């Protein structure tokens, strides 16, 4: 790279510098929307062919698309937005990326430096507005500092715990000429430690030898750490024989077909996973953060366990749950050391204890918590996902989702064999995430099958991106489980608010087939379970974007469920009475 940057360095305009810096960072795709304050950058983009620009239909779409690109490739996603409304429209996406630790670099235009603070047309205090929703942000006031700041931005977005960054670039800085020195000019100070403390790793290895009821509880940090982390995790699970569960964010790090796989844990996690978390004596948390969707009631969380926590972010340790063995470091680095330490001590485990633990887990598993009463009259959403899984699992497949019941069912009924194949808004729970994310994934993987499992309400929140999908001939499949309801809101109103369904259904949904056709795409509607397989095959066989309107049972609830304010062993199952399941204390929780 150094050779290239030497050639490309020198004097140039700020706008040219932006394009050159992106090139030097190896960026091949950016998502964005032009406007007054970024016109010089768009002029430079026009005059080159190394970087593809994807014109979204709303800036929120650009950020989610960049997130989809980042999560499916492991590389930072890049988006360009204009000043004022362009930047404020980016805020939801930035917050989403912050909560899910997704590396994205957003470049925003700003009014010229001499107009900042004058309430100029399309002026907003972008660094002020985005300060709490980025990992870091910069306002660049001199063209000479633009190049180094852009490279610093990529560095900060990707190092340590990844996250979104924003560089605000006033228009006069884009026009002015300055010197560009390439990638090496960034400040090198930001360098979070990646190596774990050897004594703590040794302590964990020792605890693993004597544990009778151990469990691995893994999260998105394993995926963020890179493919090596997933590989090491698999090695460690195979070598120890310990059972493993994962958060919504971590699905795919360990294969769903793996022998030790318990399924997802948490509020809508599997019975066996939550019961194992509750009953374990050694919890090894890897790259997860004890989110409230995971822990349920804190004071009843896994009462008798020793907890080890591996995380690159010191602020994740002891934030919600007391940790006995805290290890700060990168997952791949720490797992390598841990495997080494445990192997050096003779790769011992308590086989007898583990056998009993496995027998207990098998008992829980036998409860078959995902069983549901199927119907031959109406499509059950669970059945739709079972069929989607059966018909697509052997393909080169990427799944994105929106937020709600369909998201939880997708996590329960679809199996992920590899990391970076599952893109969902976990922390922020952003309805409208999945469709633009699928656009970003498809741009990165043009020949792969990309499916957005959606609910009709979420999907409508960013449906304008149909224009993007059609323009770039992106064959994204929009698999909409349409219950004409805000399903998860409806479920909570049923369980919690006396079945008063306040504002949780839509009376004027579009005809999704006609909607697809209006955009120049294909629409498919299916309402009979008997037609479902053929309809899914028709969707898969179509070379182009498809809106699949799957009319499902309108009142299905998502189970198992740990009601707010309850512990892991107080799960609601599908067939039991759920009236008054959530007490007044739980109702105030979200």
């Amino acid at each position: 790279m150094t050779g290239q940057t030497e050639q490309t360095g020198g004097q140039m305009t700020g706008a040219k510098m932006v394009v050159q810096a992106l090139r030097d960072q190896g960026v091949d795709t950016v998502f964005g929307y032009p406007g007054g304050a970024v016109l010089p950058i768009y002029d430079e983009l026009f005059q080159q062919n190394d970087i593809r620009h994807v014109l979204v239909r709303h800036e929120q779409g650009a950020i989610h698309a960049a997130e989809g690109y980042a999560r499916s490739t492991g590389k930072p996603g890049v988006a360009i937005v204009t000043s004022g409304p362009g930047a404020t429209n980016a805020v939801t996406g930035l917050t989403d990326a912050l909560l899910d630790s997704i590396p994205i670099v957003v470049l925003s235009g700003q009014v010229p430096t001499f107009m900042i603070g004058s309430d100029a047309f399309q002026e907003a205090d972008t660094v002020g507005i985005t300060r709490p929703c980025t990992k870091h942000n910069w306002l660049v006031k001199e063209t000479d500092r633009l190049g180094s700041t852009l490279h610093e931005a990529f560095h900060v977005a990707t190092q340590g715990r990844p996250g979104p960054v924003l560089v605000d670039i006033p228009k006069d800085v884009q026009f002015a000429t300055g010197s560009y020195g390439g990638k090496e000019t960034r400040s090198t100070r930001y360098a979070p430690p990646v190596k774990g403390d050897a004594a703590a790793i040794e302590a964990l290895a020792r605890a693993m030898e004597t544990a009778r009821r151990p469990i691995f509880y893994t999260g998105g940090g394993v995926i963020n750490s890179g493919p090596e982390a997933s590989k090491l995790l698999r090695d460690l699970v195979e070598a120890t024989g310990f059972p493993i569960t994962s958060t919504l964010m971590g699905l795919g790090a360990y294969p769903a077909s793996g022998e030790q796989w318990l399924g997802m844990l948490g509020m809508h996690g599997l019975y066996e996973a939550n019961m194992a978390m509750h009953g374990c004596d050694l919890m090894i948390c890897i790259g997860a953060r004890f989110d409230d969707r995971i822990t349920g009631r804190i004071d009843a969380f896994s009462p008798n366990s020793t907890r080890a926590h591996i995380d690159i972010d010191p602020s994740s340790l002891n934030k919600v749950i007391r940790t006995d063995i805290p290890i700060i470091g990168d997952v791949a680095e720490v797992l390598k050391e841990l495997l080494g330490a445990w192997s050096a001590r003779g790769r011992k485990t308590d086989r007898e204890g583990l056998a009993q633990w496995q027998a207990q887990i098998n008992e829980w598993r036998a409860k078959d918590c995902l069983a549901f009463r199927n119907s031959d009259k109406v499509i059950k959403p669970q059945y739709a996902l079972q069929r989607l899984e059966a018909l697509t699992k052997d393909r080169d497949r990427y799944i994105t989702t929106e937020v709600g019941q369909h998201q939880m069912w997708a996590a329960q009924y679809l199996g992920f064999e590899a990391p970076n194949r599952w893109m969902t808004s976990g922390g922020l729970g952003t309805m409208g995430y999945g469709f633009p994310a699928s656009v970003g994934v498809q741009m990165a993987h043009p020949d792969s099958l990309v499916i957005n499992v959606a609910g009709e309400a979420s999907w409508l929140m960013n449906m304008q991106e149909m224009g993007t999908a059609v323009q770039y001939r992106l064959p994204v499949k929009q698999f909409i489980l349409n219950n004409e309801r805000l399903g998860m809101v409806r479920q909570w109103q049923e369980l919690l608010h006396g079945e008063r369904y306040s504002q949780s259904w839509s009376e004027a949904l579009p005809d999704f087939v006609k909607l697809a056709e209006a955009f120049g795409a294909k629409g498919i509607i299916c309402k009979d379970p008997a037609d479902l397989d053929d309809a899914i095959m028709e969707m898969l066989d179509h070379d182009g974007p498809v809106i699949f309107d799957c009319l499902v049972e309108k009142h299905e609830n998502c189970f198992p469920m740990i009601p707010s304010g309850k512990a892991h062993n107080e799960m609601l199952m599908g067939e039991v009475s759920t009236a008054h399941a959530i007490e007044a204390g739980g109702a105030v929780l979200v």
Partner: protein
Amino acid sequence: MLNIKAGSTSHSAYNLRSVYSDVEERHTLAVIVENEPGVLARVIGLFSGRGYNIESLTVAEIDHTGHMSRITLVTSGTPQVIEQIKAQLGRIVPVHEVHDLTVEGATVERELALFKVRGEGEHRVEALRLADIFRANVVDSTLESFVFEITGTPEKIDAFADLMRPLGLIELARTGVAALSRGPDSRV
């Protein structure tokens, strides 16, 4: 590299309170930051956004060529909250070092304050007498008022304010706490 001292309670042989205690502690933190635009907003935004207390905050550049500033921050919370505050501060990109002066050893803490006291006759004489006892300086005077300058611990300034109030205290400005470790070594 980021330098966070572990455990508000785990490094002292004499303080055996659990890190998970519910008792609120007052801690003085020294935060060394890059002197760049917005860095103070990041620190303050962290405290307001996450609901932490700020009892006192002072900031000034300490190294002009190195573009470094020192923020002295007095905060309170349970040990777990204090640990979170330090970890969250350490996460801010332009923050170089976070030092918990309260657990790192003995410190000196000083604050400067200006008092405007207005009065006549006996009150005026008494104010001047007390100022002398507190080693406050008169930095402005008229026939009916004084401005006193006083330096000391926050407690000393509180005590002086309590005494001045009935004597005609009409305006008060305080700088907030500046703190350094005692002894010949620098930990920062």
